[in-house]
């Protein structure tokens, strides 16, 4: 009976439950993280906040905060010195050498002890080495039509103006005095409203902040229809919002084919650190526009993108363990992320107003808000706000120009930050 009781106690002591309710040793932190993961799962499923990424992120967060699960434990390679008895066994019978690699250093013999890492640690290497975000950009390039941008090239400038939020937030983060330049740059890139870019930049500059930054970036991308309209209405007049723009000129196939090549050449020669993101984005677009590689075009935007999204989401969420996430810095990151989005929207709208003035009222300033690269949500928001003033106003295709330009702009901004701080 005693033995049975001892066995039960032993199982309980070694279980995750014991660790979770061990409040004296920080088990309460894991409980809080599990609750946060639950809230994010609810937001992803019930409220449909960017579910494709938020759901895997939330579940990764849940998995890593279950004690003793070891899903994110790193692989262990250590050199263990031989004891005298082990040395004797090695020399007489060669036992250890048959099983473990043996090394000699400074006259001392060691055997290599190997312990495999957790599942998510291995999958996380794709984030750590900057592989997954460029692959997602490949799929995005396959899905993006740059026609509205090519037919109205001044949309590039609106895409650039919307990246002001990034640099404004960088200064704000530094002024708080709690973040290094690398950390501030990683937080600032949330303002680009581009998940893969934010993850790519953060994994290089401040990998410790990957969890909170990813959660903030994807949450705010889902909140674009809530955050942007009040700013757009506050910065524009009714007359400006009612502007109907001229129909876009037709774009030839040759222009659409040359676009990815020119953009790659210019951006990568100027900013080599932007090569993975810009290069894969434009490669995907070339697949789409060439029309001769339909199989790989379909694979890149469907199967490949889905696989990478699963791996990226789960592993990024798994970086949000209790020790790194439950920190005052996380709250500051969430606040700064909101500032980045708001200032980016304002920057695009204000530049749109400038273009309205210079073109004699031909450009609707609302399309400037679409320069944040939340494709196509930001363009839809511009369309919706414009239609509130004038139901016959169709701004969607005009707003798609700055929207896709913002993708390029945020990748260029990421390249600048990585070049300066990487």
């Amino acid at each position, binding site marked *: 009976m005693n033995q049975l009781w001892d066995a039960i106690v032993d199982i309980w002591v070694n279980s995750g439950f014991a660790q979770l309710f061990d409040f004296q040793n920080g088990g309460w932190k894991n409980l809080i993280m599990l609750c946060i993961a639950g809230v994010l799962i609810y937001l992803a499923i019930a409220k449909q906040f960017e579910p494709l990424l938020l759901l895997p992120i939330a579940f990764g967060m849940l998995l890593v905060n279950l004690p003793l699960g070891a899903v994110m434990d790193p692989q262990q390679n250590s050199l263990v010195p031989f004891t005298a008895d082990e040395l004797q066994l090695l020399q007489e019978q060669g036992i250890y050498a048959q099983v473990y690699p043996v090394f000699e250093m400074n006259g001392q013999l060691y055997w290599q002890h190997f312990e495999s890492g957790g599942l998510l640690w291995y999958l996380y290497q794709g984030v750590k080495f900057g592989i997954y975000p460029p692959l997602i950009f490949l799929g995005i390039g396959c899905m993006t039509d740059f026609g509205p*941008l*090519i*037919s109205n*090239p*001044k949309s*590039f*400038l609106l*895409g*650039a103006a919307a*990246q*002001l939020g*990034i*640099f*404004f937030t*960088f*200064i704000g983060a*530094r002024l708080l005095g709690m973040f290094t*330049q690398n950390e*501030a*740059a990683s937080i600032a890139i949330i303002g680009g409203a581009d998940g893969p870019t934010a993850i790519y930049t953060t994994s290089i500059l401040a990998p410790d902040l990957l969890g909170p930054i990813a959660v903030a970036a994807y949450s705010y991308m889902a909140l674009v229809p809530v955050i942007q309209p009040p700013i757009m209405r506050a910065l524009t007049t009714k007359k400006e919002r009612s502007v109907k723009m001229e129909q876009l*000129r037709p774009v*030839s196939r*040759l*222009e659409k084919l*040359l*676009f990815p090549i*020119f*953009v790659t050449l*210019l*951006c990568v020669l*100027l*900013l080599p650190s932007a090569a993975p993101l810009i290069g894969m984005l434009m490669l995907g677009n070339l697949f789409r526009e060439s029309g001769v590689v*339909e*199989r790989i075009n379909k694979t890149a935007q469907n199967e490949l993108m889905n696989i990478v999204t699963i791996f990226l989401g789960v592993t990024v969420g798994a970086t949000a363990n209790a020790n790194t996430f439950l920190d005052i810095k996380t709250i500051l990151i969430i606040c700064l992320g909101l500032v980045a989005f708001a200032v980016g929207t304002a920057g695009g709208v204000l530049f749109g107003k400038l273009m309205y003035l210079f073109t004699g009222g031909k450009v609707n300033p609302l399309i400037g808000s679409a320069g944040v690269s939340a494709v196509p949500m930001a363009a839809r928001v511009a369309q919706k706000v414009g239609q509130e003033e004038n139901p016959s106003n169709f701004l969607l295709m005009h707003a798609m120009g700055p929207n896709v*330009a913002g993708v*390029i*702009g945020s990748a*260029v*901004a990421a390249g*600048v*930050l990585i070049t*300066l701080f990487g």
Partner: protein
Amino acid sequence: MVTNAATEATEAVAEVIKIPDAMVVVVGIAIVMSVLLVLTGIFYAFGFIMSRASKPKTAKKANAPAAEPAKASAPVAATPAPVVQEGISGEVVAAIAAAVAMMAPEGKRYALKSVSRANGGRPAWAAAGVADNTRPF
């Protein structure tokens, strides 16, 4: 000890060469705006070149229609009506003719000679799926 000394040295160097925050903002905004400004210029130029290149073609096309009606009447009169298999309605023939006309390259005209049902056990959609999946690299 060696590791600590190396880390301290790295941090000391980083402190010396640290870029001021204001400079980061100025440089960052300037580079992003410059790159996209250059792209704007390139694609405006491209649009201008494309519109100039297509202008002579539209001018030729404007002259051509005057001559075409005179030519068009003769070929239309000479082309015999397509041989249509029994059971295929006129609307189907018209739809097929419209599809062929749409696929024809610019400046070329095709004449529909005959319309008949394709033989084969496999439905058209299935055949298209097989062709799509077995097309060589």
